[in-house]
């Protein structure tokens, strides 16, 4: 295929990936682009939400929704910078992402498409009015667990304390019609709906006959499953990631249900199947975090103080600079670490991408170049993005970093240089854009500049689809091609590296396959050890830029989260797939918990979608909630009244070190893979103890 790069100058867009996603060919979108609603994060600079809404409404009336997790005080606040999730149509996103937009917006991070039916557009102002939520008086010992995941079977018996009494105090169902009947305890949300304990208990009573709960009918009634909507309801399957994880974090057999351990759950929106960008849940994640955190503030002790809360979010991604300054890590930090506020902890998995060849460490130092072979797969229905993060500190004498990208087929490459806002577009023989190379400077939200390569999907049904060629793309990262005139200087910036990550394509279990993961295919990457087993660590002294080290979950790179790796029960070894540090802001995960029973019996048992049986799932996703469970009890057991340091990272390190020495075969795994040590946390869901 004839494909040629063109230097198209300054695109005038702030976030290049958002711009790219909004400029694909029409067959990439299920509806005309301008009609589509998006969940997106807007970075407002010295602008209040009220002001922003006014300006956006003026230019594009009726095309923006402010979630009511932002109350009147939030909407009036005018901090130097705030990153908020709003639901808006494409024209609003486009304008807000344009340089010099005059709305006070410093760029937009685009999330997923939101079906119109999931938005409360038709509600009248009266219908939208609701009374402020009342505080819930609870025992001083109470600790709240909040789980955010895909479909969570909140009616499962493991989340009840009696046949028709739920321990779930809020179920936020994001993929459901926002149109709720006037039933007590049901609330419309800006995306979807929520049900409180009252509503869930009523549903349990309605759908339980003679000891048997018809959970299928219950979830259809709740709007968590929709067979007529044409979409995909993960909760309809016998296994769901969210139910499995939630049960590990907070599930108990009914007759052993603990008191004072309420549960809040949020089910993120299921993939909009026509979205070919490899969708992105972060804006919806933030909504869910805000919503659950706000709900958690209702739980008050006898002295009126807010009880502690532990979040579990079992997702791993590769986006961001991994130095704690990325958008999501910062926002997690903001929600979790409120200084004087109530105790909040966030547990995240280390990620399963250790062997995925999606990370490269390109040491371009003062001179030199690094070449990466990027394999883009055929039959990849979603776009691929490669993020190249530039060193935070650049020596003033050094040449700027250049990146040259050549598509398969030996056509000439395009070169972009750091600092340039010029966008390079690769066009096919029909003049349609199929790939883009762009530069994004450091911003107030992200400490580092980046260069992004965005590649179109490689398969599409429509003849009008602009497809990128599958095959080996070449990425060269270099400073100067010719040899240096002087010998290289050695100073503290020696070894400054460009850290490269390929964005993860989140295909969850049970979902139809959409994207296929692009990865690095450098010939000097050693995959196997001498015995033919996958090598879980980089060979010492390797020169290959493609690394296992540094694959750690991009979400988990801030100060606050408790990051959990996975180990195999039978031999105590860290699972091969469990992602590794170090990354610029972390040496590795904080601890490791059980993720697989044995090398041949993968996964651990936990709840299936319906009551009465358990299923196996594997990964750092299932290791993390064990630590959440531990953290909840540690906080409850902490005798100091303020509990300020209960179950924080330092505590977890100490606990893991002791636990590792006591319960596991030595030596301890290296910190980059297993953190401070392995922890043994029993979970009793009614199956014989198979730990």
């Amino acid at each position: 295929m004839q494909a040629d790069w063109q230097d198209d100058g300054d695109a005038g867009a702030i976030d290049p990936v958002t711009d790219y996603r909004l400029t694909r060919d029409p067959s990439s979108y299920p509806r005309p682009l301008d009609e589509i609603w998006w969940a997106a994060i807007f970075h407002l600079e010295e602008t209040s939400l009220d002001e922003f809404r006014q300006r956006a409404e003026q230019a594009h009336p009726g095309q923006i929704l402010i979630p009511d997790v932002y109350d009147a005080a939030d909407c009036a606040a005018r901090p130097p910078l705030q990153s908020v999730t709003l639901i808006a149509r494409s024209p609003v996103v486009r304008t807000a992402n344009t340089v010099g937009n005059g709305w006070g917006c410093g760029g937009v991070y685009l999330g997923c498409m939101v079906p119109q039916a999931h938005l409360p557009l038709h509600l009248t102002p009266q219908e939208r009015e609701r009374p402020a939520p009342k505080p819930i008086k609870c025992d001083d010992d109470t600790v709240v667990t909040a789980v955010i995941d895909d479909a969570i079977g909140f009616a499962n018996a493991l989340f009840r304390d009696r046949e028709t009494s739920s321990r779930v105090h809020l179920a936020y169902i994001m993929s459901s019609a926002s149109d709720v009947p006037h039933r007590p305890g049901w609330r419309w949300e800006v995306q979807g709906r929520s049900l409180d304990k009252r509503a869930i208990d009523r549903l349990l009573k309605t759908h339980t006959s003679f000891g048997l709960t018809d959970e299928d009918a219950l979830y259809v009634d709740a709007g968590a499953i929709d067979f007529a909507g044409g979409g995909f309801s993960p909760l309809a399957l016998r296994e769901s990631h969210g139910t499995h994880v939630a049960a590990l974090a907070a599930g108990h057999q009914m007759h052993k249900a603990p008191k004072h351990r309420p549960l809040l759950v949020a089910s993120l929106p299921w993939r909009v199947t026509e979205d070919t960008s490899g969708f992105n849940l972060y804006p919806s994640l933030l909504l869910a975090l805000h919503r659950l955190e706000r709900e958690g503030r209702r739980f008050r002790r006898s002295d009126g103080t807010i009880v502690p809360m532990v979040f579990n979010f079992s997702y791993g991604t590769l986006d961001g600079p991994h130095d704690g300054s990325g958008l999501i890590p910062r926002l997690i930090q903001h929600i979790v670490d409120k200084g004087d506020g109530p105790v909040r902890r966030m547990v995240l998995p280390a990620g399963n991408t250790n062997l995925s060849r999606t990370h490269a460490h390109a040491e371009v130092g003062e001179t030199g170049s690094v070449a990466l072979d990027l394999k883009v797969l055929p039959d990849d229905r979603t776009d691929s993005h490669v993020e190249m993060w530039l060193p935070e500190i650049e020596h003033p004498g050094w040449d700027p970093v250049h990146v040259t990208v050549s598509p398969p087929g030996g056509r000439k490459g395009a070169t972009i240089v750091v600092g340039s806002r010029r966008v390079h577009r690769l066009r096919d023989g029909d003049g349609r854009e199929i790939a883009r190379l762009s530069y994004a400077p450091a911003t107030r939200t992200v400490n580092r500049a980046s260069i992004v390569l965005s590649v179109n999907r490689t398969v599409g049904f429509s003849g009008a689809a602009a497809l990128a060629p599958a095959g080996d793309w070449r990425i060269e990262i270099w400073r100067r091609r010719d040899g240096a005139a002087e010998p290289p200087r050695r100073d503290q910036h020696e070894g400054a590296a460009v850290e490269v990550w390929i964005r993860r394509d989140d295909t969850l279990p049970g979902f139809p396959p959409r994207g296929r993961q692009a990865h690095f295919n450098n010939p000097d990457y050693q995959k196997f050890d001498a015995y033919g087993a996958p090598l879980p660590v980089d060979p010492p002294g390797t020169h290959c830029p493609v690394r296992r080290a540094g694959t750690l979950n991009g979400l988990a790179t801030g100060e606050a989260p408790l990051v959990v790796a996975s180990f195999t029960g039978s031999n105590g070894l860290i699972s091969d797939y469990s992602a590794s540090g170090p990354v610029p802001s972390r040496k590795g995960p904080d601890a490791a918990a059980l993720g697989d029973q044995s090398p041949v019996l993968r996964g651990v048992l936990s709840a299936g979608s319906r009551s009465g049986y358990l299923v196996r799932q594997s990964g750092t996703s299932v290791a993390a909630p064990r630590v959440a469970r531990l953290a909840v009890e540690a906080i409850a057991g902490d005798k100091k009244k303020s509990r300020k340091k209960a179950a924080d990272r330092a505590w977890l390190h100490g606990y893991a070190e002791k636990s590792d020495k006591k319960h596991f075969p030595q030596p301890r795994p290296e910190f980059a893979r297993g953190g401070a040590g392995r922890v043994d946390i029993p979970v009793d869901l009614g199956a014989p103890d198979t730990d």
Partner: protein
Amino acid sequence: MSNAESGSPEGSFGSFGSFGSFGSFGSFGSFGSFGSFGLPASPLAAEALITNREGIVGPTIPFLDYDPRPSTDPVHGLPHFSPAVRASIFLFEFASRLAVTVKDDGETPVAEVLSTSLHGGPKHRMSAEPLVTVVAPTIDQLREQTKFLSAYADLRQDRAREILVQTSALIPFYASILYMDPGRTPHTLEFLQTALSCANMVYMRVKYGLALPRPLQFSPQIQPAIPTPTHPTLPSGHATEAFLLARLIWKLRRHATHNPDSRQEATWGEMLMRQASRIAINRTVAGVHFPVDSVAGAILGLTLADFIWDLCDKTIQRRATAEFDGRRFPVEDDFHWHALYEPKDDEQKPWAGKKSQPWMTSGTKKLKSEEQGSAAFHWLRNRALSEWEKPLN
């Protein structure tokens, strides 16, 4: 479960063999060879008998005195028949008490299943009363219901094995709930198989009359997981059979148990109905039925269960009836069995949908004059029940 493509008694009996193909029930499959006692089915058998007779018969002995006086009650012959022979008798007993009419006013066809009774006297008068009436939904309604098939198709990865097994065997699923087995409850199984064969005749006739198209005829994207059977879509044969089985098994258990009205008892009935519902919905998952097909099938199956049970009485004093008006069934509605039936009291719900314009009504009425039940069915049910009674000590 009868081979969907055949309605003959041999066909239904042959399915005993398919029951035999289900693992541990394999010994029952050898029932098929009972007709020949395990003799090889070839000319060898006849030749062996012939030459054997020559060897042992001896000279003819004049008339031996033996007068087998047949009983005046043919029922006494039943235990001596092979199951295949009994099957023919039961099928005729059932079919001769039914008639089906199909009317088409140009809008939608209406199938009426009528129960008939022959009155005594020289004129041999027959009368007929409605048993189940099925008013077809419109083609537009079916088209709207195809919306369900896309989301249900997502469940194929979960249900594929069940779907395949359930193309030919339903009873083993109920046998996993209530203890049934060819060695333990042979007449119960014969009773259930008989009921299935009877139901097969009825639902095939109704399908034939209403002639409604299958999901894949509306869209090239249905792509069912199994071949779509050649008979029309509504009512669903699987739903009819599944609910017929569930209700009959439930009646057997209720009749035999000490405490039919206890709360715990109702759990058994609930579970049997859940099983029936799963079998029915699996057909929508497979892509060969609309939800409304299962609604019509379930109503038919539940009512036939009542009809067959009453037929087993010596004299019949009540008749169950039901009507399904497909035109009133909301296209956005899915199949929910709880709207049709209450297991605790073994009763169909009197109506479903909007009270002023229900899409289902059902009821039982007292017959003006008693009718004769079927002695043959009565015998069969007694035998079945004896397998459920608690043993006397």
